[in-house]
């Protein structure tokens, strides 16, 4: 059982790291705008136009997509 001497503190340290990370994110205002975070991920501001416009095959350009 001697293994517990360092396994248990390690487990606790990991847990404390998680707690500290959460408290940091709380202080940094990460939870101020939960709905915004959900929709901002859909915005492609950070994509340059060249990346954003994949070349479409001619037949697909204006047609509707079947779902």
């Amino acid at each position: 059982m001697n293994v517990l001497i360092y396994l248990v503190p390690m487990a606790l340290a990991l847990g404390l790291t998680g707690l500290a990370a959460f408290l940091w994110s709380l202080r940094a205002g990460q939870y101020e705008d939960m709905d915004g975070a959900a929709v901002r991920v859909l915005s492609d501001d950070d994509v340059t136009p060249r990346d954003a416009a994949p070349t479409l095959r001619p037949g697909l350009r204006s047609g509707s997509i079947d779902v």
Partner: protein
Amino acid sequence: MSAAATETLDLSMFVHRRNGAAHMDLAVEDVGCAACIRKIEGGLKQIPGVVDARLNFTNRRLAVDWREEELSAAGVIAALEDIGYRAHPFQQERAETQEAQHMRWLVKCLAVAGFAAMNIMLLSVSVWSGSDMSQETRDFFHWLSALIALPAAAYAGQPFFQSAWRALRTRALNMDVPISLGVILALGMSLVESATHQPHAYFDSATMLLFFLLCGRALDHAMRRKTRAVAGNLAALKADFAHRFDGSEVVRVPAAALKPGDRLLVRPGDRVAADGVVLSGTSEIDESLVTGETERRVVATGDTIHAGAVNFSGTLTMLVTAAGTGTLLDEVERLLDRAVANKSNYVRLADRAARMYAPVVHATAALTVLGWLAAGASAHDAIVTAIAVLIITCPCALALAIPAVQVVASGALFRAGVILNSGDAIERLSEIDTVIFDKTGTLTLPEPRVDNAAAIAPDLLERVARLALSSRHPLAGAVAREARERVPFDGAIEEPGQGVRAMIDGAEARLGSAAFCGVDTAWDRGDEPGASMIAFSHAGRAVTLVVRQKLRPDAVETAAALRARGLDLIILSGDRASAVEPVAASLGITDWRGGLNPAQKIAAIDALKAQGRRVLMVGDGLNDAPALAAAHVSFSPISAADITQAHADAVFLGERLAPVLDAVAIACRARRLMQQNLWLAVIYNAVAVPVAILGFATPLIAAAAMSGSSVLVTLNALRARPPRQRAAVTAPESRGLVAAEASTA
């Protein structure tokens, strides 16, 4: 109006300096989708001078920083308008800031309690399952648990300890007293047990209890913050602006910046922004929001006018006087003070339960000690068993029973378009047996409408309404509401005091008085002084429109449904009896009174109270404010006067009256579930306590029983959501936050 284009807007009261840049918070209308974020932030950042713009999509607020030498606050708002969004400067209330801080604190406590509960449970499960565990290892685990539990409880238990201490100091009992006692005793006993190498420690129970209760509290608080944010946005949207004379120049300032002694210009169509005295000019003003009277009053130099009145015809100059100097306001303030002081001290269901629960539980624990001592057990065993009784009756289920329902119910109310001002409104609302309505602005729509719209050809009505968009006159405002396409005609000219004209398809169209339009009308307002006529002529076609107060679209059905619930309906109006009678008749309400002043309204409510009735008062006028405060529970529409809204327990959005009915239904349902939950907690205790008294309550049983009962009451609370929420109808109003007001503003 060319003056409007050049007039300066002074928003300095909303602007703060931060790191060398100006900062302003704005409530933005009609933010509905992800694209709006990019449009607003991207659009603003392209404007020279703007340093940063960040939209909070959750509460629809925009924070803008800009360099003042390049841009003005009014310029920021104008830029937003160009992008396509209306924004309203916003002053964060102190209460809201405090709540945000409190919320953060609760979440921190929750995180700490959660961390502690999980890690201690890990150690506890090992102890429970490790039957071949050596005593040294068990003690080691107990001491480790203590090391985690004690600091965690000292930190995360503070919300309960502080509240319990406050209650005890005033010699009262609330649910936090037994909670705090339970936690402290459990920790203390576990420490002693660990020190004496005993097998059972309750560190896990204590921290788990804190974790569960903090979950309930944080959710409750989050719900309250959400509704407050919406209320704040609506207030920003409703905030009036006034035209103030700064020397000879007229500056547009927010009403909140007005001080006694300011001189204001009140144009036709403007809402009077503050109480004061007319310095010059004569006009007719509509005081329906103040007194409920639909007939317009003629005012001239020296007359007192109140905030909330709408100027109808002439331009006035007024002097702002200190609040409370007007005769009506004086009376309202005096009655309010009395009504608030008399407000019966309502004891919440949870506190009533705590008052019964705490003595019973503590007496049981004491009897357990005595019983075991009498049976010949050692003092140590007797005390340990008694504390186990306290832990297992730990009011986990009881303390969650009511808040859990409250969270679900206020969420349901929010979706129904009702914003709660006070926490115990749901409980009080469930007890009512009588509903008193004010008439003007409550049963009727807050603004007059075109009554004969259905009788006019749709294409003609559209033309009339679009022409009306070019006029500032309040009657034209009512007509303009009929426009499907809100595009004014080019080159429309307003003739002050007469009407508005424009060239449409090569012929002149006129909207205004009958004489201005050359229309011969046989219309007679008869004995209905609140109604008005407005004429329209264009290319040989002429039409007269009758504008009057109309009932809310669903008032008749709502009244019938309320009556079907067994509630008595009464109308108490400040308007003339002749104006109240037809409304009462169409709603089938036989008990109505007109021409009441605020004191008489209170007297009527007091008389009902004396009969043992519990009254829901629904009103919007300044004259209703004391009555709202005096009633058992009160509602006001979002269009109500500010003081009135502040004294209402809840505010409802939109044009329909249905939120009142929905709220009563949701509250009654919530009440039933609260009682069910309390009974569930009682049944749980009836089973668990004998087990504990007999000394069989191991920490494992305590943990299982506690989490089981908490989950049970929480699941039951979820049923507080009405089976078919009319979300489809009312959701846009509360989801869009300000959309409902945009259409009526």
